[in-house]
């Protein structure tokens, strides 16, 4: 069901797939997707990008009509842009938080606009954090703190350097 042209994943080279945190980045802007991808690859994470909320939900197995059977899908952090066509980052956040299987995944919302009501709305909706664009190297370090360690497999002593 996954259409690989809708989202792209960075190749995991040296590390075992299970060791690297997996970030899902959702943004309709191509440049921003590229920058986020690089920000996180530099911080040694595997990154999957999606160009809108609908694709993100499909990837997570939460789209209408899908059965959430992605037991082996490990996503440790979701970063989503707020302003996207079709479904806003807030709406995506709500869908994720409503899902029994995915609600534990930390979600960070990013936006180019500093609007307090928007920020409050997202924080109340369960966002871990709300960051302003454009993202910088220092944001990647901050964001790594939010990455949830995978629950399956029991990775004792897993690398989590900042």
């Amino acid at each position, binding site marked *: 069901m996954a259409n690989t042209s809708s989202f792209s994943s960075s190749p995991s080279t040296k590390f075992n797939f299970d060791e690297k945190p997996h970030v899902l980045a959702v943004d309709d802007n*191509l440049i*921003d997707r*590229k*920058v986020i991808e*690089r*920000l996180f690859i*530099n911080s040694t994470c595997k990154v999957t990008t999606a160009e809108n909320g609908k694709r993100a939900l499909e990837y997570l197995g939460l789209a209408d009509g899908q059965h959430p059977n992605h037991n082996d899908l490990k996503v440790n952090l979701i970063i989503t842009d707020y302003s996207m066509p079709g479904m806003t980052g807030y709406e995506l956040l709500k869908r994720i938080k409503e899902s029994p299987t995915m609600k534990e995944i930390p979600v960070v919302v990013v936006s*180019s606009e500093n609007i307090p009501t928007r920020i409050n709305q997202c924080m109340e909706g369960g966002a871990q954090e709300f960051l302003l*664009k454009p993202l910088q190297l220092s944001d990647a370090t901050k964001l790594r703190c939010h990455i949830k360690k995978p629950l399956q497999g029991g990775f004792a002593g897993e690398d989590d350097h900042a």
Partner: protein
Amino acid sequence: MEVGQMQRAWVEYTRSLFREGFLDAQFQQLQLLQDESNPDFVAEVVSLFFEDSERLLADLTFVLEQQNIDFKKVDAHVHQFKGSSSSIGAQRVKNDCIAFRNFCEEQNIEGCLRCLQQVKQDYYLVKSKLEALIRLEQQIVAAGGSIPMEELSS
């Protein structure tokens, strides 16, 4: 030109771009993201920015040529353009987009058309500067040198 000279030229040129407001600190962030494992990162992002921008400018021109201008569409395109120019550090273009959005909100056709001209002008300017910068970087690397990023923080 030998490598040392090219590197000095690169430093001077980059500094001038910041000084003259073509580029802002966000561009430096992108440069910081480039390393030996991704030596073409900046060139790749810049190239994506060019493609994206040219598409957006074509779309904007089209929408603004219509009898009944769909300001929501104009705003959506300008919002995108503001986003990418901001992410790449193309300061003048970003600021032009901010002004552009204000005219969109007011549904001011004259203002929008003026902004379109301005943003096109500034885009093509920064495009030629970025192309020159990247060419210089490629020459330095081809000659066996490295890009002296650390010189910029002085």
